[in-house]
C-alpha cells in the first residue's frame, strides 16, 4: 500500500466527485474490518509491498449511506450501515429476519460496530455471512460511480467470481434493497462455524419460503462458503416448488444442493464435511419452516 492521502467526504456527492477525479481510483474503506487485516497481512509478507492507490476514501459513518428505511416497496439499507445496526433494527428484524440473523452472526459485537453490509458484499468472500441472507431475500444492489448514474443489479449477478464483483472502477455500492411485497416471509438463517463467536463460516445458509398453508409456492435458498461465490441452490428451489412440505420432502430436495456447490478442503474443514453440512442445514431449515407452518 502506498496510501498517502485520506479523504473523509461530507456526503455522497463529494464521495462521487472524488471518485470522478482523473488518475488511479482511490481505495475505498468503510468499517475497515476486512481492509485493515488485509493490509496488515500484506505488510507482513516477505515480498515488498505492492504498488497501489494513494488515496483512501473513507465512507464509514457517511450519513447518506447509513441507515435503514422503508422506501415504497423496498427496504433500503445504506451500504455503510453497520452489522450491529442492521441486526438490531426493528424493521429488519420484523421484515427480513434472515438478514438480522446473518448480520448478528458476523464476527463479534466489536466487529459488528464497524463492519458494514456494503463492505461484506464488496469484499465478496465466499463465506460472507450477509450474502446468503440477502440472496434468499431476493436483494438488489444499487451502485453509483463517477462516470454513469446509479444502477441496480440483482445480488445474484453482483458476485461474478471468487472475490470479484460487478463493480466497475470508480464505482461504489450505495444501498442494498430488499423487496417488501409479501413480507414477512418464513425464513431461516444458519451459520456453522468452528466456534460460537468470531468464526469464519464453514457453511452458512439462508432460506425464505413463500407458503400457501404448508405448500411451497416459491423458495429461495442460498449458501456461502461452499463455492467460489455465494450461490442460490436453484435445483433445490425448483424441487420444492408446489410440494407439500414436511421433513421427508425437505430431506429429499436438500440432496439436490450438491449440484450447486463445490466445497473445497481448507484448514477449517474438508469439502466432504462442508457437503454433508450444506445438505443437512438446508434440510433442517426447510423442515423447520414446514413444522412451523403446520403448528
Amino acid at each position, binding site marked *: 500500500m502506498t496510501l498517502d492521502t485520506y479523504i473523509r467526504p461530507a456526503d455522497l456527492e463529494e464521495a462521487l466527485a472524488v471518485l470522478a477525479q482523473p488518475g488511479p481510483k482511490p481505495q475505498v474503506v468503510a468499517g475497515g474490518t476486512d481492509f485493515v487485516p488485509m493490509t496488515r497481512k500484506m505488510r507482513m509478507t516477505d515480498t515488498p509491498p505492492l504498488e497501489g492507490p494513494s488515496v483512501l476514501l473513507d465512507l464509514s459513518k457517511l450519513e447518506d449511506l447509513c441507515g435503514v428505511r422503508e422506501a415504497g416497496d423496498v427496504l433500503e439499507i445504506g451500504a455503510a450501515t453497520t452489522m450491529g445496526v442492521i441486526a438490531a433494527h426493528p424493521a429488519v428484524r420484523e421484515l427480513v429476519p434472515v438478514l438480522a440473523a446473518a448480520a448478528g452472526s458476523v464476527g463479534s459485537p466489536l466487529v459488528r460496530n464497524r463492519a458494514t453490509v456494503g463492505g461484506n458484499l464488496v469484499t465478496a468472500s465466499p463465506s460472507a455471512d450477509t450474502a446468503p441472507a440477502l440472496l434468499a431475500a431476493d436483494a438488489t444492489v444499487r451502485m453509483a460511480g463517477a462516470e454513469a448514474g446509479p444502477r441496480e443489479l440483482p445480488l445474484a449477478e453482483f458476485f461474478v467470481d471468487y472475490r470479484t464483483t460487478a463493480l466497475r472502477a470508480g464505482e461504489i455500492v450505495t444501498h442494498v434493497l430488499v423487496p417488501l411485497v409479501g413480507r414477512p416471509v418464513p425464513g431461516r438463517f444458519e451459520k456453522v462455524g468452528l466456534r460460537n463467536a468470531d*468464526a469464519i463460516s464453514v457453511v452458512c445458509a439462508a432460506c425464505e419460503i413463500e407458503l400457501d398453508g404448508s405448500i411451497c409456492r416459491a423458495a429461495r435458498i442460498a449458501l456461502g462458503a461452499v463455492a467460489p461465490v455465494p450461490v442460490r441452490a436453484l435445483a433445490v428451489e425448483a424441487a420444492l416448488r408446489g410440494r407439500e412440505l414436511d421433513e421427508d420432502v425437505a430431506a429429499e430436495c436438500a440432496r439436490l444442493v450438491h449440484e450447486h456447490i463445490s466445497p473445497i478442503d481448507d484448514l477449517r474443514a474438508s469439502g466432504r464435511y462442508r457437503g454433508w453440512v450444506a445438505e443437512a442445514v438446508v434440510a433442517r431449515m426447510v423442515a423447520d419452516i414446514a413444522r412451523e407452518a403446520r403448528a
Partner: protein
Amino acid sequence: MMSDETPDYKVIGRAVPRHDARDKVFGTTRYADDFVMPGTLHAKVLRSRYAAAKIVSVDTSRAAAMPGVHAVLTAADVPKNETTSKFGQTHSAGGGFEGLYRVLADKKVRYMGEAVALVAAETPAQAEEAARAVEVVYDPQPGVFDPVEALKPGAYLVGEEDSNVVCAYKVRKGDADAGFAHADVIVEREYRVPFGDHVYLEPESGTAWIDEDGVLTIRASTQVIEHFRDIADIMDLPHNRVRVIAPMLGGGFGGKEDITVEAYLALLAYRTKRPVRLTYTREESILAHSKRHPYVMRYKTGATRDGKLVAMEADIVSDAGGYPFLSPWVLLYSVVMATGPYIIPNVRVDAASALTNNTFTSAYRGFGAPQVCFAYESQMDALAEKLGLSPLEFRERNYLHTGDELGTGYALESAVLTDETARRAWEALGEPTQPRSPDEVIGRGIASGMQSYGRLVYLHDSSRAFVGFELDGTVVVRSGVQDIGGGQASSIAQISAEVLGVPMDDVTVYFGDTALTPLAGTTTATRMLYMSGNATLKAARAVREAIVAKASEMLEVDSDQIDLADRMVVVAGDVGKTLPIVDVVRACASQGIPISNLAQFNAPSRDLEESDYVVGQIHPDYTFGTHAAEVAVDTRTGKVTVLKLVASFDVGQAINKLSAQGQLEGGTVCGVGYALLEDVKMDKGRTVTCALDTYLVPTAADMPDVEAIMLESRGGKGPFGAKGIGEPSSTSGAPAVTNAINDAIGIRLTELPFTPERILTALKERERSAAPARDRVTETA
C-alpha cells in the same frame, strides 16, 4: 485426611480482592511493552523461512547500511552463541535436564521461525525493512516431521548428534504380561494429541538497556528472571552485572518459561549502547515460541471382572520439535503420571521424545500430564463400558489413597481425596438436560487427574523471601516472584498479612527483580505458592517471633498469650492489655532487634541415578481432582455445545478464595479448548494456523459457567496445608468433555481436538458400517 476443624484465619481463605486487580482494571498497571524510555531503538528478528536447511551464507552488509539501522547481528556476533542452560534452576542435575540453548542459528536451521539475525533501528519500519535486506542463502534439507519417523534409523538428523532421540524413560512395576493374563477385559487403543499454543493475551515483549552503573538490564515478560545467568553466560558477563526484571505478565502458561526476547535484547542493547525494545506480533509469537508437545500414546489397560485394574502398558512418543528445551522434563512428568490417580499393580511404560523439524516444544500448562490424562481417562471409560460399570463406579474401585504407590513405586504422602472430588463433581451435574431438538444428543462425562506441584526433586529447588516491617507499621515483602496473573505476588502479601496481623492493604510486595529481590525461583510447575509461599511464611514467622517476644516483654505477659490482629498486639483473655504493633516495631528498631527476615525454603531433593528406569519420588507432591461435563452434540453438523462444567479439587487450603476458584474455572476452560478447538496445524514444519482467526480458543460464547468445588483437606505441603492448583486445574478438563461426547454419540474417538468434522465423520462411518472397528477388546472367559 480431612481436617476436622476449620481454622479461624484472618485473611487466609477469604475472598479478598487482589491489590493488583485494582491497578489492572483502572489501567495503571504497566506490562512490558507499556514502558517508555527516551532513545529506545526497535528490534526485529529475522527468522528462517525453512524448517530444515543448512545456512550457506549470511550477508548483513546491505541491511547494516540502511537508514536508521544501528546494528545487524548474526551468530558470529554473539560472545557465546551456545550454552548449556539449566533453564532457570541453580543445580546441575545431569541426565538431560540441562540442555542446549543456542541464541542464533549458525550452520543450520532446525525449525521454521528459528532466529537467524537481529536488527536494531530507529523505527519499527526501518528495523523490518533492514531485516528483509539481510541476505541469507539456505540449502534446504528434507527434514523430518513425524517423531515416530524421526526415531527410525536412517531418519534425517535434526541436530548435531547422530540420533534424534532426546530422551527415553521406562517405568516398571510388577509384571505387566502376567497382569494381562489375569485380566478379564483389555482395552488397547492409540491416542493422539496435537501441538498447542499458549495464546497468552500479551505477546512476548521486553526492553533492555545499560543502566547508569553499566549493568545490562532487561525488563521482559518472563516467567523466569533467573535466565539472567544464561544471559550473562552468552554475553560473557559476570552474573552480578546482568539484571532481569519481570513486570506483571499478561499470561504465561509455560510459553514464557524459556528465554524468548531476553537474549536478543541483551545483544542489541550491548552493541548499540541504547535501550532496545522488542515486542512480537501475534503471528510471530505463534510462529516462534514453544508449543505444547504432541504425543502418540498407545495404551493397553486390563481389568478383572470385579472392576479392579490389573495391568497397564503405555508406549509414548513425543515430538520435541527442533530443539529439546524442556522435553525431557515434560516426558518424565508424563511417565510418572501415566497411570493416572489409580492403583495398578502391574505397569510398563516406555516413552521417548524425538527431535523433528517442527516448532520446538516445551512447557505448557500441565507439562505432560494433560496428554496422558486424555489417554488414561479415555481408557477408564472404555473399560467401564465393557465391564458394565458406570464411569464413576469403576473409578471409585481403583482410586489411589494416601500411602498407595504410583507406578514408580513412590507412596503418596499427602491427602488424596480423588473419590470425594469425583462424587461431588458427578453430583453437581444435577438433572440431565433433555435434548432441545431431534438432531441433538446429550452426554455426560467425568475425568479424574493428578498433577504435581513443585519442581522435579532432582533440581534441588529452593526459594527465598524477605519480609519486614517499616517504621510506620506497614510491611514490605521482597521476593523474586514472577506474577503471571495467578496472584503470585498477592498470595505472599496475604500470607504475610495473616502472620503479622495487618490488613492486606498494609503489605506491599516488590517482586520480579534479580538485583533487588531475593530469588524465588521460576513461576512454573505450580510451584510458586508452595515454594515462595513457604519461604514467605518462614520469614514472616521469624519476624512475628521477634515482635511477639518484644511485645511479651512490653506487656509483661507470656508469649503464648499473644496474638497479632488488625495492627494490634492482643492478649488472650485480657481485652485491656493491648498495644499497637507499630509501637513494638519501633521498640525493636531502637534496640537493635531485627524487624525483618530473609528466609529460604528448600523442597525435597534427590540426586539423579544413571538409569532409564524412573523409580521413587520424582515430585514433592500431587494435587488430585475431577472434572465433570455435560455436552450436547448436533448429529447433523457434529458441533458440540458444552452445557455444564464442574471442577472439583482438593486444594489443601485456599489462600485467596477468589483466586483459587479462578484457577479452577480458568484451568477448566483451558482443558475445554484442548478438547474441542486448539490445534496448531503444521505442514512439513510450516505453521499453518498462524493467527487467532485460524488457531481458535474458546470465547465467552462457547463456554457455560464453570462450577468450582473446592475441598480443603489442609493436607498439602504448601503454606497452611495448601496444594498447588494452577496446572492441576487444567489437566482433566479435556477428557471430561471428550468422555461426555463419547457418551453422547456412542463412539469413542481418540484424537484431539474433537472437532465437528471428526465427530460427524465418525457418525457417518457408523451409519455405513455395523459396528466400530476402533478398538481391540478381548474378553476372556
